[in-house]
Protein backbone atom coordinates (compact mmCIF):
# COMPACT_ATOMS: atom_id res chain seq x y z
CA UNK A 1 0.00 0.00 0.00
CA UNK A 2 2.80 2.42 0.83
CA UNK A 3 4.14 2.06 -2.72
CA UNK A 4 0.72 2.94 -4.12
CA UNK A 5 0.64 6.14 -2.05
CA UNK A 6 4.16 7.07 -3.07
CA UNK A 7 3.46 6.38 -6.73
CA UNK A 8 0.34 8.51 -6.63
CA UNK A 9 2.17 11.45 -5.03
CA UNK A 10 4.89 11.24 -7.69
CA UNK A 11 2.42 11.11 -10.55
CA UNK A 12 0.35 13.99 -9.25
CA UNK A 13 3.43 16.14 -8.61
CA UNK A 14 4.61 15.37 -12.11
CA UNK A 15 1.25 16.36 -13.60
CA UNK A 16 0.71 19.55 -11.63
CA UNK A 17 3.53 21.78 -10.45
CA UNK A 18 1.24 23.48 -7.95
CA UNK A 19 1.42 20.38 -5.78
CA UNK A 20 3.82 20.73 -2.84
CA UNK A 21 4.44 18.26 -0.03
CA UNK A 22 5.15 19.52 3.48
CA UNK A 23 5.61 17.66 6.74
CA UNK A 24 8.03 16.29 9.31
CA UNK A 25 10.91 14.28 7.80
CA UNK A 26 9.27 14.06 4.37
CA UNK A 27 12.44 15.16 2.52
CA UNK A 28 15.71 13.22 2.50
CA UNK A 29 14.32 10.51 4.74
CA UNK A 30 11.15 10.15 2.66
CA UNK A 31 8.90 10.17 5.71
CA UNK A 32 9.17 7.81 8.67
CA UNK A 33 7.15 5.25 6.68
CA UNK A 34 8.74 6.22 3.33
CA UNK A 35 5.53 7.46 1.72
CA UNK A 36 7.46 10.37 0.20
CA UNK A 37 10.66 8.47 -0.52
CA UNK A 38 12.55 9.90 -3.48
CA UNK A 39 10.18 12.81 -4.03
CA UNK A 40 12.56 15.48 -2.80
CA UNK A 41 15.32 14.18 -5.07
CA UNK A 42 12.89 14.31 -8.01
CA UNK A 43 11.08 17.55 -7.34
CA UNK A 44 13.46 19.60 -5.25
CA UNK A 45 13.54 21.09 -1.78
CA UNK A 46 11.01 23.78 -2.66
CA UNK A 47 8.31 21.25 -3.44
CA UNK A 48 9.06 18.69 -0.74
CA UNK A 49 9.74 20.56 2.46
CA UNK A 50 10.97 19.33 5.82
CA UNK A 51 9.02 21.45 8.26
CA UNK A 52 9.90 22.51 11.79
CA UNK A 53 8.32 20.20 14.32
CA UNK A 54 5.07 22.02 14.97
CA UNK A 55 1.83 20.54 13.67
CA UNK A 56 -0.21 23.72 14.19
CA UNK A 57 1.89 25.75 11.80
CA UNK A 58 2.33 22.83 9.41
CA UNK A 59 -1.41 22.71 8.83
CA UNK A 60 -1.92 26.46 9.31
CA UNK A 61 0.73 27.42 6.79
CA UNK A 62 -0.68 24.74 4.46
CA UNK A 63 -3.91 26.75 4.47
CA UNK A 64 -1.97 29.83 3.42
CA UNK A 65 -0.11 27.92 0.71
CA UNK A 66 -3.44 26.76 -0.69
CA UNK A 67 -4.77 30.32 -0.70
CA UNK A 68 -1.70 31.51 -2.55
CA UNK A 69 -2.61 29.19 -5.43
CA UNK A 70 -0.71 26.01 -4.57
CA UNK A 71 -2.15 22.56 -3.85
CA UNK A 72 -0.42 21.36 -0.70
CA UNK A 73 -0.29 17.80 0.55
CA UNK A 74 0.45 17.85 4.25
CA UNK A 75 1.81 14.84 6.05
CA UNK A 76 0.99 14.56 9.73
CA UNK A 77 3.48 12.00 10.94
CA UNK A 78 0.88 10.31 13.20
CA UNK A 79 -2.78 11.14 13.66
CA UNK A 80 -2.22 10.91 17.43
CA UNK A 81 -0.40 14.23 17.07
CA UNK A 82 -3.16 15.74 14.99
CA UNK A 83 -4.58 17.41 18.07
CA UNK A 84 -1.64 19.80 18.08
CA UNK A 85 -3.24 21.08 14.88
CA UNK A 86 -6.85 20.31 15.70
CA UNK A 87 -7.97 23.94 15.80
CA UNK A 88 -6.41 24.56 12.39
CA UNK A 89 -8.11 21.50 10.90
CA UNK A 90 -11.54 21.67 12.48
CA UNK A 91 -12.17 25.40 12.64
CA UNK A 92 -9.93 26.75 9.91
CA UNK A 93 -9.38 24.19 7.13
CA UNK A 94 -13.00 23.08 7.33
CA UNK A 95 -14.56 26.52 7.63
CA UNK A 96 -12.66 29.03 5.54
CA UNK A 97 -14.73 28.39 2.44
CA UNK A 98 -17.92 29.10 4.36
CA UNK A 99 -16.45 32.01 6.29
CA UNK A 100 -15.37 33.70 3.08
CA UNK A 101 -18.64 32.72 1.35
CA UNK A 102 -16.88 30.73 -1.31
CA UNK A 103 -14.00 33.08 -1.97
CA UNK A 104 -11.30 30.85 -0.50
CA UNK A 105 -11.33 27.25 -1.69
CA UNK A 106 -8.90 25.02 0.16
CA UNK A 107 -7.62 22.34 -2.18
CA UNK A 108 -5.44 20.65 0.37
CA UNK A 109 -4.95 17.09 1.51
CA UNK A 110 -3.83 16.10 4.98
CA UNK A 111 -2.37 12.59 4.96
CA UNK A 112 -1.85 10.75 8.19
CA UNK A 113 -1.27 7.19 9.36
CA UNK A 114 -3.49 5.99 12.18
CA UNK A 115 -4.57 2.92 14.12
CA UNK A 116 -2.63 0.19 15.81
CA UNK A 117 -1.25 -3.22 15.18
CA UNK A 118 2.43 -2.50 14.55
CA UNK A 119 3.81 -2.22 18.09
CA UNK A 120 4.20 1.54 18.16
CA UNK A 121 4.46 3.45 21.46
CA UNK A 122 1.46 5.15 23.00
CA UNK A 123 -0.11 7.97 20.94
CA UNK A 124 1.33 6.50 17.74
CA UNK A 125 -1.59 4.12 17.37
CA UNK A 126 -4.53 6.39 18.12
CA UNK A 127 -7.53 6.01 15.85
CA UNK A 128 -9.06 9.46 16.03
CA UNK A 129 -10.96 9.48 12.75
CA UNK A 130 -14.23 10.06 14.58
CA UNK A 131 -13.31 13.59 15.69
CA UNK A 132 -12.79 14.69 12.14
CA UNK A 133 -16.11 13.40 10.84
CA UNK A 134 -17.84 15.93 13.06
CA UNK A 135 -16.67 18.99 11.17
CA UNK A 136 -18.70 20.04 8.15
CA UNK A 137 -16.44 21.35 5.41
CA UNK A 138 -13.91 18.54 5.68
CA UNK A 139 -13.96 15.23 3.84
CA UNK A 140 -12.51 12.13 5.48
CA UNK A 141 -11.39 9.07 3.56
CA UNK A 142 -9.76 5.87 4.79
CA UNK A 143 -8.72 3.33 2.15
CA UNK A 144 -8.35 -0.36 2.99
CA UNK A 145 -6.65 -1.59 -0.19
CA UNK A 146 -3.61 -0.48 -2.16
CA UNK A 147 -5.78 0.06 -5.23
CA UNK A 148 -8.04 2.43 -3.32
CA UNK A 149 -5.08 4.06 -1.59
CA UNK A 150 -3.83 5.27 -4.96
CA UNK A 151 -7.20 6.12 -6.47
CA UNK A 152 -8.63 7.86 -3.43
CA UNK A 153 -5.48 9.92 -2.93
CA UNK A 154 -5.61 11.06 -6.55
CA UNK A 155 -9.29 11.97 -6.11
CA UNK A 156 -8.52 13.80 -2.87
CA UNK A 157 -5.77 15.80 -4.58
CA UNK A 158 -8.07 16.64 -7.46
CA UNK A 159 -10.87 17.80 -5.16
CA UNK A 160 -11.38 21.48 -4.36
CA UNK A 161 -12.53 20.46 -0.88
CA UNK A 162 -10.03 19.79 1.88
CA UNK A 163 -9.61 16.08 2.52
CA UNK A 164 -8.23 14.23 5.51
CA UNK A 165 -6.73 11.07 4.05
CA UNK A 166 -6.12 8.37 6.63
CA UNK A 167 -3.68 5.57 6.06
CA UNK A 168 -3.81 2.32 8.07
CA UNK A 169 -0.48 1.91 9.81
CA UNK A 170 -1.06 -1.81 9.78
CA UNK A 171 -1.81 -1.90 6.08
CA UNK A 172 1.28 0.01 4.90
CA UNK A 173 3.29 -3.15 4.29
CA UNK A 174 0.79 -5.95 4.91
CA UNK A 175 -1.83 -4.87 2.42
CA UNK A 176 -0.84 -6.01 -1.04
CA UNK A 177 -3.08 -5.99 -4.09
CA UNK A 178 -2.87 -5.15 -7.77
CA UNK A 179 -2.33 -1.46 -8.55
CA UNK A 180 -2.36 -0.21 -12.16
CA UNK A 181 0.64 1.88 -13.22
CA UNK A 182 -1.42 4.61 -14.82
CA UNK A 183 -3.25 7.42 -13.02
CA UNK A 184 -6.86 6.78 -12.02
CA UNK A 185 -9.24 8.03 -9.38
CA UNK A 186 -11.67 6.30 -7.03
CA UNK A 187 -14.63 8.60 -6.33
CA UNK A 188 -14.96 10.08 -2.84
CA UNK A 189 -18.12 8.92 -1.07
CA UNK A 190 -18.67 5.56 -2.79
CA UNK A 191 -18.31 2.39 -0.77
CA UNK A 192 -16.92 -0.89 -2.02
CA UNK A 193 -18.52 -4.28 -1.51
CA UNK A 194 -15.51 -6.18 -0.24
CA UNK A 195 -17.42 -9.45 -0.09
CA UNK A 196 -20.94 -10.17 -1.22
CA UNK A 197 -23.31 -11.91 1.18
CA UNK A 198 -26.99 -12.39 2.00
CA UNK A 199 -27.57 -12.71 5.77
CA UNK A 200 -25.92 -9.75 7.43
CA UNK A 201 -24.14 -6.54 6.41
CA UNK A 202 -20.84 -5.93 8.16
CA UNK A 203 -19.58 -2.38 7.79
CA UNK A 204 -15.89 -1.55 8.22
CA UNK A 205 -13.24 0.86 7.04
CA UNK A 206 -9.48 1.01 6.78
CA UNK A 207 -7.57 -1.79 8.56
CA UNK A 208 -10.76 -3.25 10.01
CA UNK A 209 -11.95 -4.27 6.55
CA UNK A 210 -9.40 -7.05 6.50
CA UNK A 211 -10.56 -8.25 9.92
CA UNK A 212 -14.15 -8.15 8.70
CA UNK A 213 -13.26 -10.24 5.66
CA UNK A 214 -11.60 -12.84 7.82
CA UNK A 215 -14.60 -12.91 10.15
CA UNK A 216 -16.88 -13.36 7.16
CA UNK A 217 -14.77 -16.25 5.99
CA UNK A 218 -15.02 -17.96 9.38
CA UNK A 219 -18.76 -17.36 9.59
CA UNK A 220 -19.29 -18.80 6.14
CA UNK A 221 -18.04 -22.10 7.53
CA UNK A 222 -20.96 -21.95 9.96
CA UNK A 223 -23.33 -21.25 7.10
CA UNK A 224 -23.69 -17.51 7.70
CA UNK A 225 -23.32 -15.39 4.62
CA UNK A 226 -21.81 -11.99 5.48
CA UNK A 227 -21.71 -8.99 3.16
CA UNK A 228 -18.66 -6.86 3.98
CA UNK A 229 -18.85 -3.18 3.08
CA UNK A 230 -15.65 -1.15 2.91
CA UNK A 231 -16.83 2.41 3.49
CA UNK A 232 -13.70 3.94 1.89
CA UNK A 233 -15.03 7.35 2.78
CA UNK A 234 -16.35 8.36 6.22
CA UNK A 235 -17.55 11.71 4.98
CA UNK A 236 -19.30 11.77 2.55
CA UNK A 237 -20.92 8.58 3.75
CA UNK A 238 -22.41 6.35 1.04
CA UNK A 239 -25.87 6.07 2.56
CA UNK A 240 -27.36 4.70 -0.66
CA UNK A 241 -24.80 1.94 -0.83
CA UNK A 242 -25.32 0.99 2.81
CA UNK A 243 -29.07 1.12 2.51
CA UNK A 244 -29.04 -1.09 -0.57
CA UNK A 245 -27.05 -3.74 1.25
CA UNK A 246 -29.03 -3.56 4.47
CA UNK A 247 -32.38 -3.73 2.71
CA UNK A 248 -31.12 -6.94 1.15
CA UNK A 249 -29.70 -8.56 4.31
CA UNK A 250 -31.99 -7.01 6.91
CA UNK A 251 -29.20 -7.03 9.50
CA UNK A 252 -26.27 -4.75 10.10
CA UNK A 253 -23.17 -4.76 12.28
CA UNK A 254 -20.34 -2.25 12.42
CA UNK A 255 -16.74 -3.19 13.01
CA UNK A 256 -14.01 -0.71 13.79
CA UNK A 257 -10.58 -0.80 15.35
CA UNK A 258 -11.65 1.63 18.04
CA UNK A 259 -12.89 1.26 21.58
CA UNK A 260 -16.45 0.01 21.75
CA UNK A 261 -17.75 3.28 23.09
CA UNK A 262 -16.58 5.56 20.28
CA UNK A 263 -18.86 8.26 19.10
CA UNK A 264 -18.41 7.60 15.41
CA UNK A 265 -19.67 4.05 15.66
CA UNK A 266 -22.65 5.00 17.74
CA UNK A 267 -23.42 8.09 15.81
CA UNK A 268 -23.20 6.28 12.51
CA UNK A 269 -25.38 3.41 13.70
CA UNK A 270 -27.91 5.82 15.12
CA UNK A 271 -28.12 7.87 11.95
CA UNK A 272 -28.22 4.70 9.89
CA UNK A 273 -31.23 3.46 11.82
CA UNK A 274 -32.91 6.77 11.40
CA UNK A 275 -32.24 6.89 7.70
CA UNK A 276 -33.34 3.32 7.13
CA UNK A 277 -36.50 3.80 9.20
CA UNK A 278 -37.69 6.86 7.32
CA UNK A 279 -37.14 5.37 3.92
Amino acid at each position, binding site marked *: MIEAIRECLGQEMEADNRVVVIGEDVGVLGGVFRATDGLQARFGKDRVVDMPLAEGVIV*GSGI*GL*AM*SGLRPVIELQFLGFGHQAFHQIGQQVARL*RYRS*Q*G*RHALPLVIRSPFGGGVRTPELHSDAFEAFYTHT*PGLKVVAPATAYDAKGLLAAAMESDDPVLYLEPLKGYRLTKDEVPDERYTVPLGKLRIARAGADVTLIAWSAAVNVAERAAEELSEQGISVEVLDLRSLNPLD*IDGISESVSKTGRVAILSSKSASTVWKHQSSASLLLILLIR
Partner: protein
Amino acid sequence: MSESRFLPNFESIAPFSRLSDSGILDSGESPMSDEAVLEALRYMMLTRVFDDKATSMQRQGRFGTFSSVRGQEASVVGAATALDPVKDWIVPQYREFPALIRHGYPIENFALYFMGNPKGGTIPPNVNMLPMQISLAAQIPQATGLAWGLKMQGGDGVAITFFGDGASSEGDFHESLNLAGIVKAPVIFFLQNNGWAISTPRENQTAARSFAERAIGYGVEGVIVDGNDLLAVHEVTARAVAKARAGNGPTLIESVTYRTGAHNTADDPSRYVDQQELEKWQQKDPVERVKNYLRSRGIWNENLELELLDSCAAQIDAAMEIARNTPLATSEALFDHVYAEPPQRMLDQKHDWAIRNGGDR
Protein backbone atom coordinates in the same frame (compact mmCIF):
# COMPACT_ATOMS: atom_id res chain seq x y z
CA MET B 1 37.36 26.31 29.27
CA SER B 2 34.48 28.46 28.14
CA GLU B 3 32.43 30.26 30.72
CA SER B 4 28.74 29.64 31.10
CA ARG B 5 26.88 32.92 31.21
CA PHE B 6 23.50 34.43 30.70
CA LEU B 7 22.78 36.42 27.59
CA PRO B 8 23.08 40.18 27.91
CA ASN B 9 20.39 41.92 29.84
CA PHE B 10 18.96 44.19 27.16
CA GLU B 11 17.89 47.66 28.13
CA SER B 12 14.27 48.23 27.22
CA ILE B 13 13.98 50.19 24.01
CA ALA B 14 11.91 53.30 23.53
CA PRO B 15 9.41 52.90 20.66
CA PHE B 16 10.39 54.47 17.35
CA SER B 17 8.49 57.72 16.85
CA ARG B 18 8.34 60.69 14.49
CA LEU B 19 5.65 62.96 15.88
CA SER B 20 5.67 64.47 19.34
CA ASP B 21 2.52 64.08 21.46
CA SER B 22 1.45 67.49 20.17
CA GLY B 23 1.98 66.48 16.54
CA ILE B 24 5.30 68.16 15.80
CA LEU B 25 7.53 66.25 13.38
CA ASP B 26 11.15 65.66 14.37
CA SER B 27 13.90 67.31 12.31
CA GLY B 28 13.91 64.56 9.65
CA GLU B 29 11.95 64.27 6.44
CA SER B 30 8.33 63.10 6.59
CA PRO B 31 7.80 59.52 5.40
CA MET B 32 4.39 60.51 4.00
CA SER B 33 3.33 63.25 1.61
CA ASP B 34 0.74 65.72 2.89
CA GLU B 35 -1.78 64.13 0.54
CA ALA B 36 -1.07 60.68 1.93
CA VAL B 37 -1.45 61.99 5.48
CA LEU B 38 -4.77 63.61 4.58
CA GLU B 39 -5.99 60.37 3.05
CA ALA B 40 -4.87 58.43 6.12
CA LEU B 41 -6.59 60.91 8.42
CA ARG B 42 -9.78 60.43 6.48
CA TYR B 43 -9.63 56.67 7.14
CA MET B 44 -9.03 57.38 10.82
CA MET B 45 -12.03 59.71 10.99
CA LEU B 46 -14.15 57.29 8.98
CA THR B 47 -13.34 54.65 11.58
CA ARG B 48 -14.52 56.90 14.43
CA VAL B 49 -17.77 57.60 12.62
CA PHE B 50 -18.29 53.91 11.91
CA ASP B 51 -17.43 52.86 15.48
CA ASP B 52 -20.01 55.30 16.87
CA LYS B 53 -22.59 54.12 14.39
CA ALA B 54 -21.91 50.44 15.08
CA THR B 55 -22.04 50.93 18.84
CA SER B 56 -25.38 52.67 18.61
CA MET B 57 -26.69 49.97 16.25
CA GLN B 58 -25.61 47.36 18.80
CA ARG B 59 -27.47 49.23 21.57
CA GLN B 60 -30.58 49.17 19.40
CA GLY B 61 -30.23 45.42 18.94
CA ARG B 62 -29.43 45.70 15.24
CA PHE B 63 -25.76 44.71 15.49
CA GLY B 64 -24.23 41.80 17.38
CA THR B 65 -21.28 42.18 19.75
CA PHE B 66 -18.87 44.66 18.24
CA SER B 67 -15.24 45.66 18.94
CA SER B 68 -14.25 49.22 18.12
CA VAL B 69 -10.83 50.48 16.98
CA ARG B 70 -10.97 53.45 19.40
CA GLY B 71 -7.46 54.66 20.27
CA GLN B 72 -5.73 52.43 17.71
CA GLU B 73 -6.58 54.29 14.51
CA ALA B 74 -3.03 55.44 13.74
CA SER B 75 -1.70 51.96 14.38
CA VAL B 76 -4.06 50.27 11.92
CA VAL B 77 -4.09 52.99 9.27
CA GLY B 78 -0.34 53.64 9.43
CA ALA B 79 0.26 49.95 8.69
CA ALA B 80 -2.42 49.64 6.02
CA THR B 81 -1.23 52.64 4.02
CA ALA B 82 2.17 50.97 3.59
CA LEU B 83 0.55 48.19 1.51
CA ASP B 84 -0.21 47.87 -2.18
CA PRO B 85 -3.77 46.51 -2.36
CA VAL B 86 -3.09 45.12 -5.84
CA LYS B 87 -0.53 42.58 -4.71
CA ASP B 88 -0.30 42.58 -0.91
CA TRP B 89 -2.53 40.57 1.41
CA ILE B 90 -4.15 41.41 4.72
CA VAL B 91 -4.78 38.61 7.20
CA PRO B 92 -6.78 40.27 9.95
CA GLN B 93 -7.82 39.61 13.53
CA TYR B 94 -11.03 41.63 14.14
CA ARG B 95 -9.99 45.14 15.14
CA GLU B 96 -8.74 46.47 11.82
CA PHE B 97 -11.77 48.03 10.12
CA PRO B 98 -9.94 50.81 8.21
CA ALA B 99 -7.24 48.47 6.89
CA LEU B 100 -9.86 46.18 5.37
CA ILE B 101 -11.84 49.05 3.89
CA ARG B 102 -8.76 50.61 2.32
CA HIS B 103 -7.91 47.23 0.83
CA GLY B 104 -11.32 47.08 -0.86
CA TYR B 105 -13.61 45.17 1.51
CA PRO B 106 -17.02 46.86 1.27
CA ILE B 107 -18.24 48.65 4.41
CA GLU B 108 -21.69 47.14 3.89
CA ASN B 109 -20.19 43.63 4.12
CA PHE B 110 -18.47 44.58 7.34
CA ALA B 111 -21.83 45.76 8.66
CA LEU B 112 -23.65 42.65 7.43
CA TYR B 113 -21.13 40.50 9.27
CA PHE B 114 -22.12 42.15 12.53
CA MET B 115 -25.78 41.83 11.61
CA GLY B 116 -25.28 38.07 11.55
CA ASN B 117 -25.67 37.73 7.81
CA PRO B 118 -23.22 35.17 6.35
CA LYS B 119 -23.09 37.35 3.23
CA GLY B 120 -21.00 39.73 5.31
CA GLY B 121 -18.12 37.32 4.96
CA THR B 122 -18.11 37.75 1.19
CA ILE B 123 -14.75 38.98 -0.02
CA PRO B 124 -14.85 40.38 -3.56
CA PRO B 125 -12.67 38.40 -5.97
CA ASN B 126 -10.00 41.06 -6.41
CA VAL B 127 -9.66 41.94 -2.73
CA ASN B 128 -6.60 40.30 -1.21
CA MET B 129 -7.70 39.46 2.27
CA LEU B 130 -8.77 36.61 4.50
CA PRO B 131 -11.97 36.82 6.53
CA MET B 132 -11.79 38.28 10.03
CA GLN B 133 -10.45 35.81 12.55
CA ILE B 134 -12.15 35.18 15.87
CA SER B 135 -9.99 32.23 16.93
CA LEU B 136 -7.09 34.23 18.30
CA ALA B 137 -3.75 33.79 16.50
CA ALA B 138 -5.09 31.09 14.16
CA GLN B 139 -4.60 33.52 11.28
CA ILE B 140 -0.86 33.90 11.91
CA PRO B 141 0.25 30.51 10.46
CA GLN B 142 -2.10 31.12 7.54
CA ALA B 143 -0.49 34.47 6.77
CA THR B 144 2.92 32.85 6.99
CA GLY B 145 1.97 30.11 4.52
CA LEU B 146 0.30 32.59 2.22
CA ALA B 147 3.36 34.84 2.09
CA TRP B 148 5.63 31.85 1.64
CA GLY B 149 3.43 30.56 -1.21
CA LEU B 150 3.51 33.94 -2.97
CA LYS B 151 7.29 33.86 -2.79
CA MET B 152 7.46 30.22 -4.01
CA GLN B 153 5.49 31.22 -7.08
CA GLY B 154 7.86 34.05 -7.87
CA GLY B 155 5.56 36.94 -6.94
CA ASP B 156 6.64 39.97 -4.96
CA GLY B 157 3.47 40.39 -2.91
CA VAL B 158 3.71 40.35 0.87
CA ALA B 159 1.23 39.44 3.59
CA ILE B 160 0.63 41.41 6.75
CA THR B 161 -1.15 39.82 9.67
CA PHE B 162 -2.67 41.75 12.55
CA PHE B 163 -3.09 40.38 16.06
CA GLY B 164 -3.13 41.53 19.66
CA ASP B 165 -0.81 41.32 22.63
CA GLY B 166 -3.09 38.62 24.02
CA ALA B 167 -3.07 36.56 20.82
CA SER B 168 0.72 36.61 20.86
CA SER B 169 0.72 34.21 23.81
CA GLU B 170 -0.83 31.49 21.65
CA GLY B 171 1.39 28.75 20.24
CA ASP B 172 0.38 29.73 16.71
CA PHE B 173 2.26 33.03 17.06
CA HIS B 174 5.47 31.34 18.14
CA GLU B 175 5.25 28.50 15.63
CA SER B 176 4.69 31.02 12.87
CA LEU B 177 7.58 33.31 13.70
CA ASN B 178 9.77 30.25 13.83
CA LEU B 179 8.67 28.98 10.41
CA ALA B 180 8.74 32.43 8.81
CA GLY B 181 12.33 32.87 9.95
CA ILE B 182 13.35 29.52 8.47
CA VAL B 183 11.72 29.95 5.05
CA LYS B 184 12.18 33.75 4.95
CA ALA B 185 8.50 34.26 4.26
CA PRO B 186 7.62 37.80 3.12
CA VAL B 187 5.28 38.35 6.03
CA ILE B 188 4.86 41.23 8.46
CA PHE B 189 3.67 40.26 11.91
CA PHE B 190 1.86 43.36 13.13
CA LEU B 191 1.29 43.02 16.86
CA GLN B 192 -0.98 45.67 18.31
CA ASN B 193 -0.04 45.97 21.95
CA ASN B 194 -3.07 47.89 23.16
CA GLY B 195 -2.40 47.14 26.81
CA TRP B 196 -5.25 44.68 27.23
CA ALA B 197 -6.65 41.31 26.27
CA ILE B 198 -10.19 41.93 27.46
CA SER B 199 -9.34 42.56 31.17
CA THR B 200 -5.94 40.88 31.25
CA PRO B 201 -3.13 43.44 31.33
CA ARG B 202 -0.10 43.24 29.13
CA GLU B 203 2.08 42.21 32.13
CA ASN B 204 0.16 38.95 32.37
CA GLN B 205 1.05 38.00 28.79
CA THR B 206 4.82 38.04 29.01
CA ALA B 207 7.74 38.72 31.35
CA ALA B 208 9.72 40.03 28.38
CA ARG B 209 10.24 43.79 28.39
CA SER B 210 8.77 44.11 24.96
CA PHE B 211 6.88 41.84 22.60
CA ALA B 212 9.22 42.86 19.80
CA GLU B 213 12.28 41.30 21.40
CA ARG B 214 10.72 37.85 21.22
CA ALA B 215 11.58 37.97 17.50
CA ILE B 216 15.28 37.56 18.31
CA GLY B 217 14.74 34.00 19.48
CA TYR B 218 13.39 33.10 16.05
CA GLY B 219 16.10 34.77 14.02
CA VAL B 220 13.59 37.39 12.94
CA GLU B 221 13.94 41.16 13.12
CA GLY B 222 11.73 42.85 15.69
CA VAL B 223 10.89 46.53 15.97
CA ILE B 224 8.89 48.56 18.40
CA VAL B 225 6.99 51.63 17.32
CA ASP B 226 4.77 54.29 18.88
CA GLY B 227 1.40 53.03 17.69
CA ASN B 228 -0.28 56.40 18.20
CA ASP B 229 2.09 58.04 15.75
CA LEU B 230 0.75 57.62 12.22
CA LEU B 231 3.98 58.65 10.52
CA ALA B 232 6.16 56.36 12.59
CA VAL B 233 3.90 53.33 12.10
CA HIS B 234 3.73 53.99 8.37
CA GLU B 235 7.48 54.37 8.10
CA VAL B 236 8.32 51.21 10.03
CA THR B 237 5.74 49.15 8.14
CA ALA B 238 6.84 50.51 4.76
CA ARG B 239 10.40 49.47 5.60
CA ALA B 240 9.27 45.98 6.59
CA VAL B 241 7.22 45.69 3.39
CA ALA B 242 10.15 46.78 1.22
CA LYS B 243 12.43 44.35 3.01
CA ALA B 244 9.99 41.46 2.53
CA ARG B 245 9.44 42.34 -1.13
CA ALA B 246 13.17 42.32 -1.71
CA GLY B 247 13.35 38.76 -0.41
CA ASN B 248 14.84 39.58 2.97
CA GLY B 249 12.22 37.91 5.11
CA PRO B 250 9.79 38.65 7.90
CA THR B 251 9.57 41.39 10.53
CA LEU B 252 7.74 41.50 13.83
CA ILE B 253 6.39 44.98 14.51
CA GLU B 254 5.15 45.78 17.99
CA SER B 255 2.88 48.77 17.80
CA VAL B 256 2.51 50.22 21.29
CA THR B 257 -0.91 51.77 21.61
CA TYR B 258 -3.89 51.72 23.92
CA ARG B 259 -7.47 50.57 23.66
CA THR B 260 -9.30 53.66 24.91
CA GLY B 261 -12.70 52.05 24.44
CA ALA B 262 -14.20 48.86 25.84
CA HIS B 263 -12.99 45.47 24.57
CA ASN B 264 -16.36 45.14 22.88
CA THR B 265 -19.95 46.20 23.40
CA ALA B 266 -20.43 43.46 26.02
CA ASP B 267 -17.48 44.59 28.14
CA ASP B 268 -17.37 46.84 31.21
CA PRO B 269 -13.83 48.25 31.41
CA SER B 270 -14.65 50.25 34.55
CA ARG B 271 -14.11 46.98 36.42
CA TYR B 272 -10.43 46.87 35.54
CA VAL B 273 -9.10 49.97 33.73
CA ASP B 274 -7.30 52.55 35.84
CA GLN B 275 -8.94 55.90 35.18
CA GLN B 276 -5.69 57.87 35.40
CA GLU B 277 -3.93 55.62 32.97
CA LEU B 278 -6.83 55.88 30.56
CA GLU B 279 -6.78 59.68 30.76
CA LYS B 280 -3.05 59.71 30.14
CA TRP B 281 -3.57 57.76 26.93
CA GLN B 282 -6.56 59.86 25.90
CA GLN B 283 -4.15 62.81 25.93
CA LYS B 284 -2.14 60.98 23.27
CA ASP B 285 -5.13 60.69 20.95
CA PRO B 286 -3.82 59.54 17.56
CA VAL B 287 -6.41 61.44 15.51
CA GLU B 288 -5.75 64.76 17.26
CA ARG B 289 -2.03 64.21 16.79
CA VAL B 290 -2.39 63.98 13.02
CA LYS B 291 -4.64 67.03 12.93
CA ASN B 292 -2.06 68.97 14.91
CA TYR B 293 0.62 67.85 12.50
CA LEU B 294 -1.40 69.03 9.52
CA ARG B 295 -2.09 72.30 11.34
CA SER B 296 1.66 72.74 11.75
CA ARG B 297 1.92 72.22 7.99
CA GLY B 298 -0.70 74.92 7.47
CA ILE B 299 -3.17 72.61 5.76
CA TRP B 300 -5.80 71.95 8.39
CA ASN B 301 -8.72 74.09 9.48
CA GLU B 302 -12.23 73.83 10.92
CA ASN B 303 -13.90 73.90 7.52
CA LEU B 304 -11.83 71.05 6.20
CA GLU B 305 -12.62 69.06 9.32
CA LEU B 306 -16.36 69.59 8.96
CA GLU B 307 -16.22 68.77 5.28
CA LEU B 308 -14.34 65.55 5.95
CA LEU B 309 -16.69 64.53 8.77
CA ASP B 310 -19.68 65.09 6.52
CA SER B 311 -18.25 63.02 3.74
CA CYS B 312 -17.35 60.20 6.17
CA ALA B 313 -20.86 60.23 7.62
CA ALA B 314 -22.36 60.15 4.14
CA GLN B 315 -20.18 57.21 3.15
CA ILE B 316 -21.13 55.23 6.27
CA ASP B 317 -24.82 56.05 5.88
CA ALA B 318 -24.79 54.89 2.28
CA ALA B 319 -23.17 51.59 3.27
CA MET B 320 -25.63 51.09 6.14
CA GLU B 321 -28.47 51.70 3.73
CA ILE B 322 -27.20 48.91 1.48
CA ALA B 323 -26.78 46.60 4.48
CA ARG B 324 -30.30 47.36 5.71
CA ASN B 325 -31.76 46.65 2.29
CA THR B 326 -29.94 43.36 1.91
CA PRO B 327 -32.43 40.52 2.38
CA LEU B 328 -31.96 38.47 5.54
CA ALA B 329 -30.13 35.22 4.96
CA THR B 330 -32.43 32.23 4.59
CA SER B 331 -31.73 29.31 6.89
CA GLU B 332 -30.69 27.32 3.82
CA ALA B 333 -27.79 29.73 3.42
CA LEU B 334 -26.22 27.92 6.35
CA PHE B 335 -25.48 25.06 3.99
CA ASP B 336 -24.06 27.11 1.13
CA HIS B 337 -20.32 27.37 0.61
CA VAL B 338 -19.51 24.60 3.06
CA TYR B 339 -18.16 22.34 0.33
CA ALA B 340 -17.25 22.66 -3.33
CA GLU B 341 -19.11 19.36 -3.78
CA PRO B 342 -21.52 18.93 -0.85
CA PRO B 343 -22.22 15.41 0.43
CA GLN B 344 -25.73 14.12 -0.28
CA ARG B 345 -26.58 14.07 3.44
CA MET B 346 -26.00 17.78 3.62
CA LEU B 347 -28.08 18.51 0.54
CA ASP B 348 -30.85 16.41 2.10
CA GLN B 349 -30.57 18.35 5.32
CA LYS B 350 -30.75 21.64 3.43
CA HIS B 351 -33.85 20.42 1.64
CA ASP B 352 -35.45 19.31 4.94
CA TRP B 353 -34.85 22.72 6.47
CA ALA B 354 -36.42 24.46 3.54
CA ILE B 355 -39.55 22.34 3.83
CA ARG B 356 -39.74 22.55 7.61
CA ASN B 357 -39.41 26.31 7.50
CA GLY B 358 -42.34 26.46 5.11
CA GLY B 359 -40.64 28.30 2.32
CA ASP B 360 -38.79 30.59 4.70
CA ARG B 361 -36.88 33.12 2.60
